[in-house]
């Protein structure tokens, strides 16, 4: 619950998450075209899902409703 700081810094968490999501997606595509490893691809998807659940969807608010951003 901080006061509005410099616009930009409050969005940092989302920026970082988006960056890693893009990186993993590129790795996925390269992996698919070279290795054809289903297991690795599924693991990478789970990693991406974890980032989305935690950072974007704020799943922890379910058990920590007070913690806001």
């Amino acid at each position, binding site marked *: 619950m901080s006061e509005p700081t410099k616009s930009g810094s409050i969005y940092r968490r989302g920026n970082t998450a*988006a960056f890693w999501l893009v990186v993993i*997606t590129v790795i*996925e595509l390269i992996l*698919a075209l070279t290795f054809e490893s289903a297991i690795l*691809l599924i693991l990478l998807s789970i990693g991406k899902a974890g980032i989305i659940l935690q950072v974007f969807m704020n799943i922890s608010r379910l058990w920590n409703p007070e913690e806001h951003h």
Partner: protein
Amino acid sequence: MSAVAHDHDHHNPMEPTRSEQVKMNRLGLWVFCLSESFLFFALLGTRFYLWRNPVDGIIRPDLAQIPAFIFTGVLLASSYFMNRAEVAISKDDRTTFNYSMLLTAALGLVFLFGVVLVEWGLATGPELLLGDGAFGAVFYAMTGMHALHVIMGIALILIVWNNGRKGLYTAEDHWAVEACAIFWHYVDLVWVFFYPALYLIGTAIELHH
């Protein structure tokens, strides 16, 4: 006669407070997402159950990679702006909120048209025909069911954007924005699994015949 005692005082002595109601709403939405996950897992299960053959094991239709990759990126970008909108409203930054919501909806629309026009168009063109065994059936079922959720998500975003413009949400109380965000990210989450399942995993089978 009635099974509820007639009562002129229509005031609930145990009415949930706003913050209690928001907590319940949040859990309700998550249970809904859990429920939907059973649908999407069943679709994924269908994909892995059917897209096999005795020679190659797990297979996939040889679909164009680049457009699918771009549209995946577009959906991801929309998710990013959705998050930006939610953070913005929680800091009372209305300008960022307004344009981020619109951008989210716009990118969502690009994704929708990408899947329905470009991907389906590419697929139905000379190659994957509706009814070509299990390739067509599963491809259209998965992308179609996902697209249906994209449409619902875009509608939700536009409604919330519109109500936000009217000033209905505050930094402290913006459950509608949060709900819209959770749903939209959920739609993205589903695509995180659908994209590799449809385009990346398995031996590619040539479609020209």
